């Protein structure tokens, strides 16, 4: 299994619709400070990663919705789809391409937003996402996703906290 493409809609600085195709092997993302590089990785984590907003550098999930930038209008929802090439069927679904979508939209409910998950367009759940990803060996809380600043925090942290890294993984 490998990531073929990301579709971003109103996710952080990606106002409107943006498609980012990926190939197998080794891909670099480059660009000036603040241009949106880490936001692309946040989009991946938004679908694959821990579901809390904190891990996406946001106070609430609604902070992930495009805020309009300099002069534009703030959007009312954000959506990210990750398209995986599943020809090797490592995800237990009978499709060559598996499209995992997460959608957060502002709503009148008490939480102020609703969050939903889709697999190939059909409503799904966080639990199903986790089971599909785990069987493909894509761990979201392991050290496979090295966020900006993780290296510095491993260096600066105390020995106890460093040991806890092994506790979590074991």
């Amino acid at each position: 299994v490998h990531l073929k493409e990301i579709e971003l809609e109103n996710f952080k600085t990606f106002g409107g619709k943006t498609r980012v195709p990926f190939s197998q092997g080794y891909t670099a993302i480059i660009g000036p400070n603040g241009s949106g590089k880490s936001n692309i990785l946040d989009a991946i984590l938004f679908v694959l990663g821990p579901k809390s907003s904190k891990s996406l550098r946001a106070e609430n999930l609604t902070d992930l919705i495009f805020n309009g930038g300099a002069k534009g209008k703030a959007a009312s929802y954000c959506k990210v789809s990750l398209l995986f090439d599943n020809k090797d069927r490592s995800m237990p679904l009978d499709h060559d391409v598996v499209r995992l979508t997460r959608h957060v939209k502002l709503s009148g409910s008490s939480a102020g937003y609703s969050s939903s998950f889709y697999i190939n367009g059909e409503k799904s759940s966080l639990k199903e996402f986790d089971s599909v990803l785990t069987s493909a060996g894509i761990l979201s809380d392991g050290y496979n996703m090295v966020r900006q600043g993780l290296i510095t925090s491993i260096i600066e942290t105390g020995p106890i906290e460093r040991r806890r890294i092994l506790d979590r993984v074991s």
Partner: protein
Amino acid sequence: KKELFMKLYRDVNENLSEIYRIFSRGGKASLELENPENPFEGGLDIKASPSGKKVRLLKSLSGGEKSLAALAFIFALQQTNPSPFYILDEVDMFLDADNAGVVSRIIRENSQKAQFIQVTLRKVTLKQTEHIIGVMMQNSGVSEVVMKPNIDDFVEENRPMEVKT
């Protein structure tokens, strides 16, 4: 619980010393438990000696030497449980040209077996990557993706300093 922990500890330790030997062209690194009898009562330290130097704890190394050791530790952890897919965000930030070059060569080798997506500002790293995606921001505050960016306009090149006096 302690069984599981100690097994992971031994695996990571073994991976670390191998990965760091390659990263530092001959140096030694290892983990050290503050309390080996009861690991959950003490912490964990990383000891490293860049080639040609005495062994020291992480905190007395230089900025770049620390980040090389910490990166080796992360890769050692990753090896215990391989994934088809990795993301790395500016992990080559503190490294000089030699070190950044070695690290990106290792990632290139690993990318035969898994997909790697790495945010980087370093030209030395881009020499090893197969595909490059650019991201720009217009004055509007909206990000745009550029599929074939002109690299020369973008990143820096580090070469080891020759003593040309």
